[in-house]
């Protein structure tokens, strides 16, 4: 745009002619922005409807839940379902299992993924290209294809219905290796070269220089891993036939399938199961969304 040109008569006249139009434009803009605010709030609330419904139902007494017509707002509040859920389902067990499964996979996978990525990004060796392409190919496999042989294999090892069985195949992740390799390649090399000249071992460079620099990428990837495994249904469903060794999504789905549907209890359980991920997300929303937008994967 042209800046600091002296105003001429022509400009003034043009501006005067535009003024009423601009006033109208401003009014129009104000009303569009109101309209946008209203429309987007309605869309937002509709998107949250299942979650809002879940929260309110969890606090409704049974009589209120089964009454017709259904209402969103609870007429009365109760904590019964939150007490029931611990007694009727081995909910504490499910919770602990899910924490161990999702947490264990996240920590171990971050370690192994980053080690592999360090080798691929920083240590020249013969066969690096082949390994990298191989990892990319594995990345493109749908998980469902290996599901049956994997189950069969772990079953043969006596690892079905155990937490190690759930965790071991996920201790590394092709996407994680790819993601961190890309990140490591973007890091400057000066520091580590200096350290290498000083005789530092590769392990020291990896753990002392690269890992601290990679904190934001590790945080993003860690969240991917945690959320993905916390939420996963199919894998724990296949691997554990008993609620005792299951995780929250599979355990709740099994409970829903086996009993007359008790929505109050299920909604209380669901709320408690979703809570950690939602709270986590709301806390680090910015970096999570930024990570997702830039990688566009997973």
């Amino acid at each position: 745009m042209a800046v600091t040109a002296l105003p001429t008569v022509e400009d003034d006249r043009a501006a005067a002619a535009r003024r009423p139009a601009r006033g109208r434009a401003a009014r129009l803009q104000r009303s569009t922005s109101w309209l946008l605010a209203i429309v987007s709030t309605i869309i937002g609330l509709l998107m949250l409807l299942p979650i809002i419904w879940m929260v309110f139902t969890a606090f409704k007494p049974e009589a209120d839940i089964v009454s017709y017509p259904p209402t969103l707002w609870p007429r009365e509040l109760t904590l019964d379902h939150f007490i029931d859920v611990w007694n009727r389902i081995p909910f504490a067990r499910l919770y602990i299992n899910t924490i161990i499964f999702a947490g264990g996979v996240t920590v171990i996978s971050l370690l192994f993924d980053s080690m592999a990525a360090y080798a691929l990004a920083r240590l020249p060796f013969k066969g690096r290209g082949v390994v990298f392409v191989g990892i990319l190919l594995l990345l493109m496999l749908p998980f469902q294809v290996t599901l049956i042989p994997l189950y069969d294999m772990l079953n043969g090892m006596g690892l079905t219905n155990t937490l190690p069985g759930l965790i071991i195949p996920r201790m590394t992740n092709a996407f994680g290796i790819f993601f961190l390799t890309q990140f490591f390649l973007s890091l400057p090399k000066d520091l580590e070269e200096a350290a290498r000249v000083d005789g530092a071992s590769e392990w020291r460079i990896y753990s002392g220089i690269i890992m601290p620099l990679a904190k934001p990428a590790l945080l993003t990837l860690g969240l991917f891993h945690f959320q993905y495994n916390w939420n996963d249904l199919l894998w724990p469903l296949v691997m554990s036939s008993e609620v005792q060794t299951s995780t929250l999504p599979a355990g709740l789905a099994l409970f829903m399938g086996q009993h007359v549907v008790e929505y109050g209890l299920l909604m209380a359980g669901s709320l408690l199961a979703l809570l950690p991920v939602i709270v986590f997300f709301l806390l680090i929303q910015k970096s999570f969304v930024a990570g997702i937008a830039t990688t566009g994967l997973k």
Partner: protein
Amino acid sequence: MTTTIAVPPATGTSSAAPRRRLRASGRRALTAWLFLAPSLIILVAFTLYPMIQAVYLSFTDYNLIRAAEFVGLSNYVELFQSAPFWNAFTNTVVYALVVTPVTVILALLFAIMLNQAFHGRAFARTAIFLPFIVSLGIIAIAWAFLLDPNIGLLSYWLGFVGIVPEQGWLSDPRYAMGAVMLVGVWKNVGFYMVIYLAGLQSIPVDMYEAARLDGAGPWQRFRSITLPLLSNQTLLVMVLALIATLQAFDQIYVMTRGGPFFRTETLVMLIYREGFQELRFGYASAISFVLLIFVFILSMIQFGYLRRKQVTY
């Protein structure tokens, strides 16, 4: 890339320097393999090997109780002649071809709307994105409840606009697929919106200014600036959405178990049923290869996109 290990000056007659460099690079290679070892061992043992095993199983009649016997192509022959397979295949394709465009178009509309500056924008962005991070298997229970014909709120509300499936949303053969599709769209629209928002923010504002000065209206600006400059994002989002929809499972398992009358049984549901309920491991493996082919091709396209992502405007 040349490695800068301090190389001693070549004094004397021996070729100590190259040899030492050779030894150093050998050491470096060994270190590299040590760093790679945990990941490679796990990937080979728990992804690559099962993958090869799946190929083998698909040519056998293995069923967990009986030892595997080689049956040649008969699983595949049975597959292509079986009504349940074609039913699941059709359901999956229909699901993918409805959910993908609906989700992508909604995501684009939401992104354009939420790229404007107004009060309450942050709330809407968070609310639309939130479904993407919660467990679909768990939130599907709330959806099933919302659509319950007797006590479900959404069922009741939809009754006001005249949509009343006779047997309830999830047990009416004509409506059940629509219900699981709705949940599929709901789950991922926020994710694709975020990708579109990132794309919108990278379009220079002066392009719009210039177009406005040239007298282009909002629709024209959208058609000739926004849409073409978002074509990269559109490709990525379409591929991601297709990959995700072809693997649809969670909400279907929870809400309908593939019913009523197998109307919502997708390929992954069929793999699960044949594999883990009928215990026909060989046959289920054969089904999984049909899925593999589709997903693999789509993933190649996605990877192609990622490689030429650094497109400048």
